């Protein structure tokens, strides 16, 4: 079934030089386990393609049921170089929650509205 990532997760983002990090925290162990298999750095790179000029790296934090994505060169320069309204990637966390994903029907009890 098609749902928004925000139905199974929360997020926070911030800047690291020219890069942004987008942390995604899943609401349940089941949703996290699904994400480790299916939420790839390639999908995130594609989703943020208007901004990301470099690679997207993905890290797993099993203890926090979280994935951490590094969006390389995604701010149009470092903090003070950038001409973007959101020069520090503060809003990218909110953006990823609106990403449409194909979530298995059998896990629908883990979807929050």
């Amino acid at each position: 079934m098609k749902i928004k990532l925000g139905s199974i997760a929360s997020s926070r983002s911030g800047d690291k030089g020219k890069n942004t990090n987008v942390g995604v925290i899943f609401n349940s162990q089941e949703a996290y386990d699904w994400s480790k298999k299916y939420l790839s750095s390639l999908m995130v790179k594609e989703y943020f393609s208007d901004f990301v000029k470099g690679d997207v790296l993905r890290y797993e934090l099993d203890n926090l049921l979280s994935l951490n994505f590094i969006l390389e060169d995604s701010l149009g320069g470092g903090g003070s170089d950038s001409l973007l309204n959101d020069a520090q990637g503060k809003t990218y966390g909110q953006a990823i929650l609106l990403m449409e994903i194909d979530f298995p029907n059998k896990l629908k009890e883990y979807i929050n509205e």
Partner: protein
Amino acid sequence: MKEIVKIANGQGFWGDSIDAPVNLIKYGKIDYLTLDYLAEVTISIMQKQKLKNPLFGYAKDFVDLIVNNQDDIRKNNIKIITNAGGVNPVECAKAIKLKLKNKSDFKIGVVKGDDIYNNIDGLINSGQSFRNLETGEDISLIRNKITSANVYIDSYCIKDALDKGADIVLAGRVSDPGLTLGPLLYEFDWKNNDFNKLASGTLAGHIIECGAQCTGGNYSKWYDIENLSNIGYPIVEVYPDGNFNVTKPKGTDGIINKLSISEQVLYEMGDPKNYISPDVCVDFTSFNLIDNNDNTVSIKNVKGFKATDTYKVSISYFSGYKSSGQLTISGPHAYKKAKYVSKIFWDRLKLAGYDFNNKNTEFLGFDSCHKKMNHKYSGSNEIVLRLSVKDSDKQKVERFGKEISPLITTGPPGITGFAGGRPKAQEVISFWPSLIDKKIVNTTVEIL
């Protein structure tokens, strides 16, 4: 040795709430209050202030905070740990002393040795490469444009200051989590090979260094929080073995739970298995986070390993000028009009013979933050057009600022919101992250 040490943060950045540190001082049930005033750009501003006047170059707000609350700080026996000294901690300390009712009331421990701006040529000549960590470029590219250079020094300088009896530790560029780790080194006498304990203290500092971002600020499920108006700033209660709780003053708003802390742990995170601080490398995937369901969480079993042989250096340099201007465009077809206005705007600058190294057009209220990611045009009644340029030529950037107001009378109808005059050309300060051998950095503490 204390059985527990309570450390609060009342300032996540220069510009954070002015009441938060005052409230924590009055609350009183803390041993240490940490205050973070320094962002990278802040230091270059301070260096510029110091060049104009050798008595300046620190966070002036901090002087007022201490002077205005000196009785409560003493009464509640709170020690203050801060990086407010910027590039001139000695003058900051003197300014505080000058305004105290009784000059001997506070011993101020001034930390020196992080600011290498005046010695950068000598260091380059003696073989420090200062190669750009991100791009690998050579420092010669920016050598004559450097505006500040500071080493992220380790937290033992804070311990040294406390050992010497400081009531206020006034540093410049210590690491942000080091403001919390420093007093723990002093209280618990942790050694530089107690990696797990150092990692615990660093994680505790990381969680509280952005103030209320761990107590309900920026929280994804903001709609679940009863109230945010009187948001409480965070306190960590740390045990000698390094395990700690995160809490906030009783009766304050906000929320502390597994999610609020997890979100902040992830904030500005790189590789979570290798978070490099001057003191230790921390494995952020190692620990257990326990939600006590009473607006506190407990963190246990943080793992760390040996620090690197280098300190990070933050060098800033002048890299040109930029400017941004905004107009509000209202009425039917607001987006279509805004796009048209931007077209004629850039056309006119081109006709006048101006092109720029970098320019940008954004539609606030439409897609400035998320572009096509969430592209569902709702037929909004108004849009803010934001126009920006960056260039090495100041005159060109100033010319850009003069082209905006004519649009009010020479474009389509319904344009307003041009307040505050022509946007000015601002200097752009860029950053050059690099490393320096730990061996050649010397930090000292002076008690004033």
